[in-house]
């Protein structure tokens, strides 16, 4: 019903736009860019003052507004930039490109009023927040590394996956339900070193947007959120070098024009040097000499503008973590990491229709190689995507902004595969039992202003997924023994799913400074991350929907009140949400992950739900700025095959979650920042006691043991000071001094039982122990730009 309602709405809208074109309207369109770097300003606002109609620049800086002919004052605004104001006499279609200039600190106080923005209350979108990477660089950082994913965790509804971790949960969804995109390419494992650092090198990035609710139809494939991160395009005006030397890593980014005004490049690298720093202290005679760990990232982007209408972008990411262990008679290495590649072609058909065609490649793989005497062992897993997308944006008039497009992905999943050899005997399986799948989607959405009060964003996405052969499916009998093997031939259909995903958000403007918004979001997800821990480990495996594993499904309802204060100086919102989740997976009780079985045989299936209320207050501009976010939420899961069907709190359940982020620009030289976080303790499981079989004590877990206990509440204060020893339009040198966990709180990272002694010796004891991982950690980073 709801679905057909939206369809009808669409047809009405499109009719309206077609008939609207009969009038002699004129279009003003163009690109908005940074004057110094030539980077597109995603989200910049272009407004015709007289009629208060406008448009927002897309990812590539393009905007388009169609209105009646006439004389207008046009303003182009972007936070942190000087507003540009022009008077134009619109008699025919006009191309107006903007190059905005960044503000310096004295100007900031003066122009606050000019920077007024009521986007918070005026836009129909909900649960969407964009961050400019430059804005977060003066916040306190962990071990000197600016990390966009950790900053996102400070927003309401988005929770950290754990101490110092870049992994995150959105509104009760698991870490696999976040679509993390780098220049549109899916990043399957966005963490280095178990998530303590994200793979995103801030120097290479331009901006990030998170959508935690009301996901528009242009996005799909994940249930809970979209994190869309764009790399810098490369300075098209002049050569620059940006970099930094930090506590654990160094960075260097080079960018500049290749052919001025036509093409530019960006090349960026980051590498940790824990291994190099510690090497001199490891005795070369020691058993562990040669052991070490490091990670690195490489980002690159090239773009070429053929004409005003055609531009191509080529970008890529490559990163690896590598851990090496050398023991006396046992050694191993495990490398893991992501690779992404993006080719984009922007084409402007005319001043109202914009097309972005994208070809993408994503790869994540993990391997573990071990050797002991004459025994060699290798374990590997991974996922690889080939992805094609066409996204159209159509600006028929000042009321509608229509997007439509299609997407096709070919997935290859490598399950955890073990191979080995002992002397001359090889244990490798005859073939690697990979899983292959097609995924496709089409969508259409319209951002439509019905009248001054009511605005909609309505859309529908239709997605389909098919697992195809070759594949060997091991069928288990009720004892869990493999009783049959079904071999599928290449290309043969194994499982096929398809579903409509309606998306709808609406805004009702109450008055100049407040509005009410509501949204309904249905999403499907055809992939699952098989994880035992809740935070993403490199060993976690991506598993597609199959005959046994049904697609994950989510329905999200949200309602919010949005209000700005003091002439838009403060933005605030209150959002209430309810989310239901179907076809969630967990490992069956006692799963021990036998080799070379189908991992899906070890899953059980259930459902989940999450609901909560989120408060957000933000001061956008001025020398003193920042935000406060608070979330109260409940998240549960229920599986028929776990604890006799009794529901339990999810690992992602967090009752209270508070973040306070403040920045103060004291002078040209000094900027201060602070972050305070408070969160209810995470849910965790403990055994209820133990029992003896064969004189060995084993832990006894009750049927309803899952997540029955809570860690103590988590809280922490970080502070930072940034000193600019030089800051001009072209040169910059700054020092960031950060203290993580200033008051040195021993937050519980986890609790476990340890057993000591033995029954025979009469001294068997069990102790509960808490582990805290990060005490106060000071860090200094030097950043430069020239």
């Amino acid at each position, binding site marked *: 019903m709801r679905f057909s309602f939206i369809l009808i709405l669409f047809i009405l809208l499109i009719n309206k736009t077609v008939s609207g074109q009969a009038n002699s309207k004129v279009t003003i369109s163009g690109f908005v860019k940074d004057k110094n770097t030539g980077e597109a300003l995603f989200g910049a606002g272009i407004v015709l003052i007289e009629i208060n109609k406008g448009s927002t620049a897309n990812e590539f800086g393009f905007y388009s507004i169609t209105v009646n002919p006439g004389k207008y004052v046009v303003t182009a605004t972007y936070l942190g930039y000087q507003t540009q104001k022009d008077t134009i006499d619109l008699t025919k279609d006009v191309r107006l490109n903007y190059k905005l200039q960044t503000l310096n600190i004295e100007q900031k106080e003066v122009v606050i009023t000019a920077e007024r923005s009521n986007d918070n209350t005026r836009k129909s979108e909900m649960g969407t927040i964009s961050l400019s990477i430059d804005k977060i660089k003066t916040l306190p950082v962990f071990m000197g590394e600016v990390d966009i994913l950790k900053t996102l965790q400070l927003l309401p509804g988005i929770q950290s996956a754990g101490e110092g971790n870049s992994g995150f949960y959105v509104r009760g969804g698991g870490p696999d339900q976040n679509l993390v995109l780098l220049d549109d390419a899916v990043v399957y494992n966005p963490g280095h070193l178990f998530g303590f650092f994200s793979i995103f090198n801030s120097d290479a990035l331009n901006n990030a947007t998170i959508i935690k609710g009301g996901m528009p139809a242009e996005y799909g494939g994940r249930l809970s959120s979209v994190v869309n991160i764009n790399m810098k395009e490369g300075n098209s005006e002049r050569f620059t070098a940006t970099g930094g030397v930090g506590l654990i890593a160094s960075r260097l980014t080079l960018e500049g024009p290749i052919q001025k005004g036509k093409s530019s490049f960006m090349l960026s690298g980051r590498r940790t040097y824990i291994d190099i720093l510690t090497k001199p202290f490891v005795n070369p005679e020691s058993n562990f000499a040669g052991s070490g760990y490091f990670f690195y990232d490489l980002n690159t982007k090239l773009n070429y503008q053929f004409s005003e209408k055609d531009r191509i972008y080529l970008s890529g990411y490559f990163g690896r973590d590598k851990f090496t262990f050398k023991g006396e008679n046992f050694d191993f290495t495990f490398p893991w990491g992501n690779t992404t590649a993006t080719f984009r072609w922007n084409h402007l058909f005319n001043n109202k229709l914009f097309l972005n065609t994208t070809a993408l490649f994503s790869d994540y793989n993990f391997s573990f190689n071990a050797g002991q005497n004459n025994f060699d062992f290798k374990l590997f897993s991974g996922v690889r995507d080939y992805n094609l997308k066409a996204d159209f944006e159509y600006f028929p008039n000042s009321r509608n902004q229509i997007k439509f497009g299609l997407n096709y992905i070919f997935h290859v999943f490598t399950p955890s595969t073990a191979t080995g050899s002992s002397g001359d005997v090889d244990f490798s399986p005859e073939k690697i039992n990979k899983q292959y799948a097609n995924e496709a989607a089409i969508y259409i959405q319209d951002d439509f202003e019905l009248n001054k009060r009511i605005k909609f964003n309505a859309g529908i996405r239709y997605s389909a997924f098919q697992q195809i052969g070759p594949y060997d499916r091991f069928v288990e009998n009720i004892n869990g023994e493999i009783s049959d093997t079904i071999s599928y031939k290449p290309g043969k259909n194994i499982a096929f799913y398809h579903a409509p995903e309606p998306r709808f958000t609406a805004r009702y403007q109450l008055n100049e400074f407040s509005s009410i918004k509501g949204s309904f979001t249905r999403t499907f997800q055809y992939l699952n991350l098989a994880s035992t821990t809740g935070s993403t480990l490199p060993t976690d495996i991506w598993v597609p929907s199959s005959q046994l594993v049904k697609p994950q499904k989510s329905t999200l309802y949200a309602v919010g009140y949005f209000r700005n204060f003091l002439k838009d100086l403060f933005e605030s919102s209150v959002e209430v949400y309810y989310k239901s989740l179907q076809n969630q997976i967990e490992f069956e009780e006692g799963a021990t992950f*036998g080799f070379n079985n189908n991992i899906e045989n070890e899953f059980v299936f259930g459902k989940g739900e999450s609901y909560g209320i989120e408060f957000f207050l933000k001061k956008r501009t001025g020398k003193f700025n920042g935000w406060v976010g608070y979330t109260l939420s409940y998240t549960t899961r229920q599986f028929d095959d776990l604890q006799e069907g009794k529901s339990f709190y999810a690992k992602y359940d967090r009752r209270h979650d508070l973040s306070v982020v403040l920045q103060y620009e004291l002078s040209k030289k000094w900027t201060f920042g602070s972050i305070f976080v408070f969160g209810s303790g995470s849910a965790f499981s403990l055994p209820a006691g133990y029992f003896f079989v064969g004189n060995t004590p084993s832990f006894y877990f009750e049927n309803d043991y899952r997540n029955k206990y809570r860690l103590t509440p988590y809280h922490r204060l970080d502070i930072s000071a940034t000193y600019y020893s030089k800051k001009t339009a072209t040169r910059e040198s700054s020092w960031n001094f950060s203290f993580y966990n200033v008051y040195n709180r021993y937050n519980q990272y986890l609790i476990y039982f340890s057993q000591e002694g033995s029954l025979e010796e009469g001294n068997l004891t069990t102790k509960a122990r808490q582990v805290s991982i990060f005490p106060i950690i000071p860090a200094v980073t030097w950043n430069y730009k020239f």
Partner: protein
Amino acid sequence: MKIREYFILLTLTFAISSCERDISLDIIQSEQQIVVEGIVEQGRQLSVILSRNLPFIGVIDTATLTPYFVNNAIVTVESDGKIDTLKQISPDFPFYISFTLFGEIGKTYNLKVEADNKIITATTTILNPIPLDSVFVKEVENKPGLYELFVTLNDPNVLGNYYRAMTKLGNQQNYDTDFQSVYEDNLINGKKFDFAINAGKGNLDDSTGFDEYGYFQEGDTIDLRWSVITKEHFDFWQTVERQGSSAGNPFSAPLKIKSNINGGIGIWGSYANSNYRIIVGK
């Protein structure tokens, strides 16, 4: 797989500053379960030990355990229409044994226990033994006087064979195992190959620690018991040993031990044995 444990090592190396301390916790008291440790072996009398699970209580020794023994239970086993009630030999220790039923290859044994106002049941079958092709020892490189025990297994080309290896030295009473004693044939199905079997963990000497762990010495008389076990029996030991190997490892996920006991916990497990004796260095 112990990969997770290696990660932990790495995490801890990284978090040099990590800190651990003892804490006290209010543990929610659990309902008491009957723990079965029942063994069915070819040619031997059937036996069962019955106990209850313990809460976390300070230091424990064998005396502390006494209240957790299940005495005076009615324990019966049925096989091929024959029923026997097992006898508790000593009133102080809950060891029940059959004097009429002996394990036979291919036979199924149905256990029933009545105690604590509960009735619990379990079933197991003794499978066919799969003997080893050979058993031999090799001197360890750079460790004179220490030997490794090797076996040659010719795994039948049918998936679904599960094994358990146990050893004892001539002067020892009971068989003992390594920290990991059970094997499945997923990776090795249909293959013929040599692999090492470690000496029992009871031989782990505090003074030499893991440097000499698992090896045998010149002059040792090794008794090796190589058994074919059922999938359920494998699952039990696999989960027990996996839990044991992650004991004290704070990062391991909770692992509930699999059991084939209806209404209780523990194992009613069968062994189809092949026995070998080898004297080291002769």
